[in-house]
């Protein structure tokens, strides 16, 4: 059996000097049976590994670029899903990435219209809101523009291998606040 993961990214909180423990435990407590947790942090959260082990979770920790860590917590006995999709439905279920408020289907637009529509739409959204867009290619020229505007994003190909789904979370300085 493969484990669906709920994703929690506490890197922004840690970078801002905040304490993410409550947020993590809240996510853990709302996990459905069989669900796991995918955690992103700016350091290896060793105390948390021990604590969640006592709650029956095994873990796989992986160091990312820049000293950051990705940790998969699986309920004991479950098999972590390989190639599990970061942009899948699970990503939008945790507290930090709410359900998308806007969904765009840009698959039939001429390039660079898909990028124009995404950037124009995010400008009208509130900080923290999430936009979901379907594309027919990985939007390589879009990512630097999102980064410049302080938005974060996740993306990946859907199981059909042809549709690229990108989730954009509007940053604090983006959107109407800008």
């Amino acid at each position: 059996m493969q484990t669906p993961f709920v994703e929690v990214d506490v890197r922004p909180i840690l970078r801002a000097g905040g304490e993410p423990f409550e947020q993590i435990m809240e996510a853990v407590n709302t996990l459905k049976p069989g669900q796991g947790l995918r955690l992103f942090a700016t350091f290896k959260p060793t105390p948390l590994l021990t604590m969640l082990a006592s709650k029956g979770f095994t873990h796989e920790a992986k160091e990312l670029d820049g000293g950051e860590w990705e940790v998969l917590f699986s309920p004991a006995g479950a098999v972590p899903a390989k190639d599990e999709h970061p942009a899948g439905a699970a990503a939008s279920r945790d507290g930090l990435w709410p359900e998308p408020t806007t969904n765009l289907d840009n698959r039939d637009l001429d390039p660079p219209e898909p990028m124009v529509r995404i950037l124009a739409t995010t400008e009208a959204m509130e900080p923290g809101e999430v936009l979901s867009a379907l594309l027919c290619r990985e939007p390589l020229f879009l990512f630097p523009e999102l980064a410049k505007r302080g938005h974060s994003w996740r993306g990946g190909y859907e199981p059909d291998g042809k549709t690229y789904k990108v989730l954009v979370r509007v940053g604090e300085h983006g959107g109407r606040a800008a």
Partner: protein
Amino acid sequence: MVGVALSRWTMTYFAAALVALLAGECLMTAGFGYPAAAVGAPETLALVHVISIGWLSLLMCGALFQFVPVLVARPLHDSWLPLPTLGCLVAGLVVLLLGFLKLGGEIDFAFSYFSVAAALLSLGFALVLWNLGRTLWAARPLPLPARFVVVGLFSVVATVSLGAVFALVLDGASNDILLATASQGLPIHIIAGLGGWLTATAIGVSYRLLAMFMLAPDLDGPTSRGALYSGATALALAIIGGLFAIFFGVNLSAVLGAAGLFGLLAVALYGRDILFLHRERKRRKIELNSRMVGLALASLAIATLLIIALLVAGKFEQHAAAVVFLVAFGWLSGLGLSKLYKIVPFMTWLECYGPIIGKAPTPRVQDLVAEARAIKWFILYYLAVWAATGALLFEVSIAFRGATALMLVATIGIAVQLVKSRMLADVKAMPKMPVDIQRPSLLFSRAS
């Protein structure tokens, strides 16, 4: 998922390349080199390298520094290295041209021109290989279009190495192996350069760009793989097999003939794929740049048929120059000029308007070009290239010069359109446009 930034020096490469193309066309119109001089005359060799290194190779390098990262979804290994690389390539080309002028008696000053040119060009192309190679290596496993680029990069190693051997011999080296290679290696140098470095790479990039701009699916099926494998086999046979034939006294023509069959298969499979992309496209009305690529592909098809016809008639050697001309100007240059008419406006649009998309009204990419004005220059260009090829086939020297003069006029027309697009000259004033839009520099892109 880090995305791809604008390549800072790609515009610099494009500008240098266009200057070389215009210079080459001026020389042909003035009657410099073949057919007024012999195919192997120093003037012809100078002209050939103005086009092959100055125009086509710089164009290809500039495009690859921007689009290899797009093909593999990774940033370029080193975004500053392209500038010193360009310095080496241009300096090497200038010294090489001086060497040919000295060889032809046009200048007197004695100097080891060819050895210095070989060193500078080898260094320049080595830097290209290092930068693109590291970018590709980090992205393994590679998608199909990037594999064509790898074949192209292996071919440029062979082309430059053979060129360096010729250069050393021209400067007086007398080693037996070098002499044997130099005396028979010219066809391999041409095949590796035009067929490998330039054509294989152009095919790879076009698989992706045409699919992107026509809204067609990315191809990775048996025909595309077949095109890759048969093309790579053709080049390996021609280059490795060819050198083997030279060293061991095997019949070189037989080896090159076998390579040609694989090359023919590769071109046929590629042609089939492109027709498929065209049929499957979601975008019904395609832009001028893609339509003009059609004429470049037609030139490739004509060149292929011409090779077959000349071989059957037993007249290939007599007319090889006409085939090389059609491949260089109809296929490679036509493809390059047509794609420049998309790449330059797109990069300019992204540089100027990317930061304000959604915050203020912005023009579309197509608002940066005036297709109705540009189309006549493209049509004139292709007609002139085909006329010049005919003039070479029928050996009418004056008609050739007339046709190359028309090519020159058409290229100036296209270049003016490209500069206007870069300078945002055709963009109508937008209402409420923020005043802080910086006009782009003609020669480089600002860091994004």
